[in-house]
């Protein structure tokens, strides 16, 4: 059974390994970093600009402004009318979009490789010359409120994750949703957006990634031509967010919502992220997550809870270390109808305690390492996904050297390292345990 249960999808970032494909990097005189990933199999290029700013960099009370601004970047410049950038990309057979996370905001176009010049022309234009009418801002605010309704308010799984994130972080803005709290989104205005734009959108806060049918020399010339003349921002703020204090108390939450047809238990632990030059702890956690929950049939939790005890119809462990500040290690168990949430939670904790006693199965560990090696081969088939991984890593405090070192670091992790990581991470004082269920069972323990 390979299909995931829909409500859980977003709990499970499926990270692939960056490959050893040919990568070229350089920096323009104005501080803009450039990464080129070559793949000449098709006449296609992906052009991306990643800004080292995201929702966790927002001023207090302005939640959602980073994402709202991302929408407004399509509303025109001194040279481009509202919507003209996307319309031009479309007329050239391409597609474009943008996305915002806590640590980055990125814009991309996917086009025939002979249109790269045009893409850079337009993307460079909106880095410094954004213009937007009050009318467009007002209309677009309605759009992002509808987006919140679609992505979050209509989906109890998203509401659950939002509440869990808020409980997880005592001080860090990772506890605030990227899209924003509704009451704050409703107040966001054009001045807020411009202030954020002028502070953070600059070549020395941006990374250009071009992947596909292009040579580093072509990219260098075009980037110099279009991005080179842009003035850097001299007083760019240092990225320093409020950090977490020690967590001294476990947090428990339950969300009851009629729309939760399939109850489940989730647990998230505050966890270290990948730090530049210091990725060992993160590598241990990545291997731990894979050993515990990487595959339904063969992982520790799948084997114990789905095959040996029938306490779960689905179970998973997740960890994605690409993050500027402290991240989380996640567990989830979906019990069958005859198993209560309390039984499921207990079974999950028991399974992990047993695992720490029993140690890592060497055959399973060898299979995981084989799959990691193969994933580097398969990753070369999807240059766009590779470009995404570079963008996310480079805007989360990592370097190309860190990305290159990661696959070998994972291979070097031992079974003992994994158990050490498990002993350290599974501290309930750092954890949020959440039950999601429909109201009818909210009083009992099912």
């Amino acid at each position: 059974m390979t299909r995931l249960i829909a409500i859980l999808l977003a709990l499970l970032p499926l990270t692939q390994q960056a490959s050893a494909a040919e990568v070229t990097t350089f920096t323009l005189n104005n501080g803009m970093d450039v990464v080129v990933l070559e793949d000449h199999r098709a006449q296609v290029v992906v052009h991306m600009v990643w800004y080292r700013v995201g929702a966790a960099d927002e001023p207090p009370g302005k939640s959602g402004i980073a994402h709202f601004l991302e929408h407004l970047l399509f509303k025109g410049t001194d040279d481009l009318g509202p919507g003209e950038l996307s319309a031009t990309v479309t007329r050239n057979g391409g597609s474009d979009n943008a996305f915002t996370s806590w640590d980055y905001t990125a814009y991309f176009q996917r086009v025939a490789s002979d249109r790269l010049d045009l893409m850079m022309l337009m993307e460079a234009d909106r880095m410094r010359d954004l213009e937007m009418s009050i009318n467009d801002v007002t209309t677009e605010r309605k759009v992002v409120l509808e987006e919140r309704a679609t992505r979050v308010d209509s989906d109890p799984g998203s509401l659950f994750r939002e509440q869990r994130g808020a409980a997880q972080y005592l001080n860090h803005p990772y506890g605030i949703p990227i899209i924003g709290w509704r009451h704050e989104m409703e107040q966001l205005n054009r001045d807020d957006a411009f202030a954020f734009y002028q502070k953070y959108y600059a070549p020395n806060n941006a990374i250009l990634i071009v992947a596909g049918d292009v040579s580093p020399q072509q990219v260098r010339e075009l980037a110099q031509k279009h991005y080179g003349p842009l003035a850097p921002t001299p007083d760019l703020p240092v990225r320093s967010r409020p950090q977490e204090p020690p967590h001294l108390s476990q947090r428990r939450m339950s969300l009851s919502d009629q729309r939760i047809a399939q109850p489940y238990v989730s647990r998230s632990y505050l966890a270290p992220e990948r730090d530049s030059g210091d990725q060992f702890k993160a590598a241990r956690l990545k291997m731990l997550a894979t050993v515990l929950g990487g595959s339904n049939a063969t992982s520790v939790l799948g084997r114990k809870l789905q095959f040996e005890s029938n306490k779960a119809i689905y179970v998973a462990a997740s960890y994605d270390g690409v993050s500027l500040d402290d991240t989380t290690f996640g567990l989830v168990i979906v019990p069958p109808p005859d198993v209560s949430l309390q039984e499921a939670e207990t079974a999950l904790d028991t399974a992990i305690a047993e695992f720490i006693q029993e140690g890592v199965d060497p055959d399973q560990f060898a299979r995981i390492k084989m799959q990691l090696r193969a994933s580097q081969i398969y990753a070369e088939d999807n240059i766009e996904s590779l470009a995404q991984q570079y963008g996310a890593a480079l805007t989360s405090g990592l370097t190309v050297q860190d990305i290159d070192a990661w696959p070998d670091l994972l291979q070097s992790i031992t079974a003992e390292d994994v158990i050490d990581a498990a002993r350290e991470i599974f501290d309930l004082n750092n954890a949020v345990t959440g039950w999601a269920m429909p109201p009818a069972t909210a009083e009992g323990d099912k």
Partner: protein
Amino acid sequence: MKRLFIVLGLMFMTATGAQAAVEVQQVTSPGGIRAWLVEERSIPFTALEIRFRGGTALDAPDKRGAINLMMATLEEGAGDLDAQGFAQAREALAASFRFNVYDDTTTISARFLTENRDQAMALLKTAIMQPHFDQVAIDRVRGQVQSIIRSDTQNPSRIGGSAFDEMVWGDHPYASSGNGTLESVTSLTRDDILDAYKRVFALDRVYVSAVGDIGADELGLLLDDLLGDVAMATTPLAPRATYQLEKGVTVIPFETPQSVALFGHAGITRDDPDFMATYLLNEVFGGGGFESRLMQEVREKRGLTYGVSTFLMPMESGELIMGQVRSDNARMGESIDVIRAEWAKIAQIGLSEKELEDAKTYLTGAYALRFDGNAPIARIMVGMQMADLPVDYIRTRNDQIRALTLADVNRVAVRIYQPDQLHFVIVGHPDGIETSN
């Protein structure tokens, strides 16, 4: 950058764009299995797509969900291996096998390294030819399917889609979800699963494509070994489905701040001479991207939604043209008014010359961008075979689009868009809207 406009104008007049440059080999194995192949030696793996014509629409009467459950249980024990043993063997080879089933198609997607290709294919063959369908595996997977069915009962988009299908297709299998219902799935026995297997695995209904580090001779031998023992079809394909829904509005009350509306009416078959014109019309009207008329009118100008789109559904036995929109309950009425007005407008006035030209530039330019990896190319090629398209379609497809005239397209707009047939299914509590004819 004041000179931007001039530069833009020149750019899209002169640039030529990408050409889909794959070289397709038509392979016939020694045993007679036909396949399309693109040899791509630069990465040491192969993507293999296998499809059988016929999917969940071939479920036996009263056994709804059997084929879906069968496909989900296929790799839960096969040959000498139990479910965990099979997964361990696959992981040790770092191969990936995906088994899926849709209304009209049963699919197997495999990805495997060159270094252990023979072992990977031997393992896949056990799943295809010797699946155990052990009772314990069936029961475990049944629990997962039931969980999905339960979740769908609280998903407004699924609720709307199911209601639409039910009203449109009457007693045809298309009228209900291929997952089955909680009741039908609960009652499925191992014999039902064995029967479901025979319904869809048919050598005379197989279509194959491969892209990657493999040659024609190697592929032929591989296919004979992998599929040569599959039996011939015994179950007739699904009968023609009759569109049975009349115009109107159906409101399904559901507690949610934002309603979901599905809308549409009868569509057009894939082999209709007007299909390409319809495809272009849909792109302009509500296809992907920000540029469609509906995105411009409903989202960009009025902020009524985050997303609105329309799509063609040319299935084997019936066709729809459909769309979906989500708006706050308070504003769904306005969204629907705009969509109705646009539906009427495209039927009455059709496209402008500029819209036609822009759509041609987009569609012809975007086509090559689909061919961007071994697995995507394999999926495109197997889809072409099932749609009975010739190999040279990859080369001629853009010419077919360029050949469309404004008169063609606007004649087809009148034929396809039927504002007086439009039916909306709305899940939520949309202000001021009630079920009506």
